[in-house]
């Protein structure tokens, strides 16, 4: 199949997956599924998991595609539809809610012209409400890429969005504002 040949992890990632599988007893390679889906979403799916990518993961682990779909659809970190280049995940649970998360969500929706869960037309941003991120003492909190941004204000959100729009930051690193 044409698509199957197009979707492939880099050699470096494949080496990482081979190493990952050694963490589990022989025959229990399915345990590597969650870590592999995280890698696939980032490297192969532009932040989400198309069916073809999930099928490829099933192939790598020698499991049925359904075993991948049922897992991907269970965990909230896996996106099953396209997302913006930058996904802003706002914690909405009680301690954040009481320290400004609701106002922050309203503000971001207004600023970016989207509703929660939607992508901006230019494909740059998705704003999502998520449940407790374990940042309760530093509320309100959002997650962008690998990092949390805490004690947020509208000004800080403005600065973060500005930075993402204009300087294409690598989300493995913390965005400095």
């Amino acid at each position: 199949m044409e698509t199957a040949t197009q979707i492939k992890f880099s050699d470096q990632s494949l080496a990482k997956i081979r190493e990952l599988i050694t963490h589990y007893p022989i025959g229990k390679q399915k345990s590597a599924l969650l870590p592999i889906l995280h890698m696939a979403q980032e490297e192969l799916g532009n932040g989400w998991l198309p069916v073809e990518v999930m099928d490829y993961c099933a192939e790598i682990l020698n499991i049925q595609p359904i075993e991948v779909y049922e897992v991907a659809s269970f965990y909230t970190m896996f996106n099953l539809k396209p997302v913006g280049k930058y996904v802003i995940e706002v914690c909405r649970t009680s301690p954040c809610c009481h320290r400004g998360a609701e106002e922050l969500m309203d503000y971001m929706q207004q600023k970016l012209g989207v509703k929660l869960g939607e992508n901006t037309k230019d494909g740059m941003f998705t704003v999502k409400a998520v449940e407790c991120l374990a940042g309760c003492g530093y509320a309100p909190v959002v997650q962008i890429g690998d990092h949390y941004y805490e004690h947020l204000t509208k000004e800080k959100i403005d600065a973060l969005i500005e930075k993402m729009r204009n300087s294409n930051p690598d989300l493995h690193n913390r965005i400095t504002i």
Partner: protein
Amino acid sequence: MGRKILTEHIHIPNIDSFDVYRKHGGYTSVEKALKKMSPENVLDEVKKSGLRGRGGAGFPTGMKWSFLAKGTGKPAYLLNNADESEPGTFKDRYLMEKNPHLCLEGMICSAYALGANVSYIYIRGEFKWIIKIIEKAIAEAKANGILGKNILGSGYDLEIYVQTGGGAYICGEETALIESLEGLRGNPRIKPPFPAVSGVWGCPTVVNNTETLAAVKWIIDNGGDEYAKIGIGKSTGTKLISAGGHINKPDVYEMDLGLPVEEFIYSDEYCGGMLNGHELKAVIPGGSSVPVLPKNLILKTASGEPRLMSYESLAEGGFISGSMLGSGGFIALDETTCMVHNTLNFTQFYHHESCGQCSPCREGTGWMKKVLKHLENGEGKMSDMDMLVDIANNIDGKTICPLGDAAAWPVVSAIRHFREEFDLHAKNPEKAKQTAHPARSIYHAIRKPELV
């Protein structure tokens, strides 16, 4: 000043590096355990310490370990539960981020006691930067012979691997965590068999919270009897409390168990009082799952004794007038807080996080959410309160795992202690909105100018 066992060295620069950690007494417990103690000796010290699970249930750790099936011919596994997701709780994250080697040190001693040669630390997927910190610490420990084959020449082998979660609260439940580690949906298992008999891949397994395992280092260094001297009664040792909500100094605090709640909230050493001079209205003392208490019952028990930060004192009065220490996720709310809104927020959380296996939880949480939403929108009826309690009581105790109970208790306790406020939402919604409203303003929250 409270004693610091877990956080003693946390402010030392570069304590997250192996050399600095080692210089400050790091890995002494591994040397002691592996060279001078048998696994049984380690287990005995943990039993003597009275250490109880810090993830929420408070089950005695030594006893949990002693249930591990022996002589099965199968390998035993130790799983470190770092899936910290209970709303209000952010202590394990703090520990892993600031002092990763302490987390590993506790795991090594514990795995030795259990005879495990492989151990996993299951970290919630959102903590991406922490996963890197822990992986670096593992690599350093391996490079220095503290992990891997023949640790410190003792003949004992141990590998620790990081397992990444996918964003599911339920995976903090130990059997759901095991399912997730096996690459499955996080659906809790029916017990028995308990993990100690049949856990990951059908092998004997112990699952402990990150903070619990970290405490094992001090216990081995200083002895279980010394640990048991700290704290009060059966609440031995120190506990990390993650304090949030409407307080002046939200943060993670380590304290001897038994500290009066009033001192914890109002002293400058801890929460520093209520934000912007507001009044305390209610506290959820142990993470969102435990019953909420109004000011009078969190500061004093129903019999008028000062309420203490301990497993027993917080539970005094049962669910009528007490709560639980839980995970130590302490949420203090001021008089501007709408309890209906807060209860709706929690219920929305449990509805979202229910794995969906058991009908009472899957359907009940959604139903409660709808009823609470109606109430909040001024479309409620006076009979809604009894209905909410009825739904909650039909979830509580009727599900495979405790998520159902955790979804029910906040609703029942909020209605028990704040019935008038709930009733007012049905009787006179406009007035209810004026009396208390969700603290929505970001600027309401800011105290320290440097954080703006």
